[in-house]
């Protein structure tokens, strides 16, 4: 840690500055909660929430305060917010196609809309964002474009995560090429692949 880093740490302690609030964002099923669970399991031994192949499994933002991450001989303490998947449309028929009955599908859709509203509201109260993208999907989704635009407008740090690199059809390169102005790390949150590089980047961007 350099002289500036030591000063920063000293003043942070002196004025008891709150932890940086970092939101985990992304479209539904990008692997946000899988990543949040990975982070918590690695550093607290706990988990954030359940995961599912059905979209909008996370329909309430979950917050974990004071997660201390060790990296490059130093440590940073963050408040992590796992947010519901952002979307511009939610059609209950899609849940029915996955085997849910109509009432259950409508309830899930209603809760998902509330989750999206909550995720959008959190955007205004964060110090930085980890934007999780599914590396098997087209990176130019509207959700990705909107989240990146909001972080750029507010001049807040952003780390892009190209997730699901364990899948053969994944292409982290297409994500890097789509948003070359932001740091990106390719991982598999499920398998823990390249997770140490991810923690190094988290410390660098949000520390």
């Amino acid at each position, binding site marked *: 840690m350099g002289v500036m880093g030591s000063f920063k740490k000293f003043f942070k302690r002196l004025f008891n500055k709150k932890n940086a609030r970092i939101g985990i964002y992304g479209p539904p099923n990008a692997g946000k909660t899988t990543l949040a669970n990975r982070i918590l399991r690695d550093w607290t031994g706990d988990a954030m929430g359940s995961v599912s192949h059905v979209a909008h499994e996370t329909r309430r933002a979950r917050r974990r305060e004071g997660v201390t991450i060790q990296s490059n001989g130093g440590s940073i303490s963050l408040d992590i917010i796992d947010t519901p998947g952002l979307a511009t449309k939610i059609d209950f028929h899609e849940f029915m196609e996955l085997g849910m009955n109509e009432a259950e599908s409508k309830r899930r859709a209603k809760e998902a809309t509330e989750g999206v509203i909550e995720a959008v509201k959190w955007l205004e109260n964060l110090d930085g964002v980890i934007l999780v993208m599914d590396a098997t999907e087209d990176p130019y989704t509207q959700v990705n474009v*909107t989240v990146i*635009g909001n972080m750029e407008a507010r001049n807040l740090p952003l780390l892009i995560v190209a997730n699901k690199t364990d899948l053969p059809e994944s292409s982290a390169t297409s994500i890097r090429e*789509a948003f070359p102005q932001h740091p990106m790390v390719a991982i598999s949150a499920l398998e823990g692949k390249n997770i140490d590089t991810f923690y190094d980047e988290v410390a660098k961007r949000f520390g």
Partner: protein
Amino acid sequence: MDLVSEDRLAKMQPVEKIRFIIDEVKDGKILVLEKGLTPEEEATLIEMTMTQIEPDDFAGIEMESYPSQTDKSLLGKLLKKNVVRTRLTVIGPANKLKTLKKDRDMISALVSSK
């Protein structure tokens, strides 16, 4: 499909703009906004869309905008707020407009008349 000029939207307050878009899209129109929306307006539009979703009636919107361009001026750094240059945006009902392919400078979409 309505092509909305920059001047038309510039006369509206942000909340009016979002209300106008939602109302038009719920009426089944597809809007092409010459100057697009700011990222903050896009987020507000997503939020308001969620409040309007009704099963069997309105499933939400399809929105397609190019990644915005940011001017990182010294003033912007000091105020922690950058000037964002917005670009063309297409918005329509989710059951009528579908994005086929999108990249930094090209949007391909399918419009259905159902």
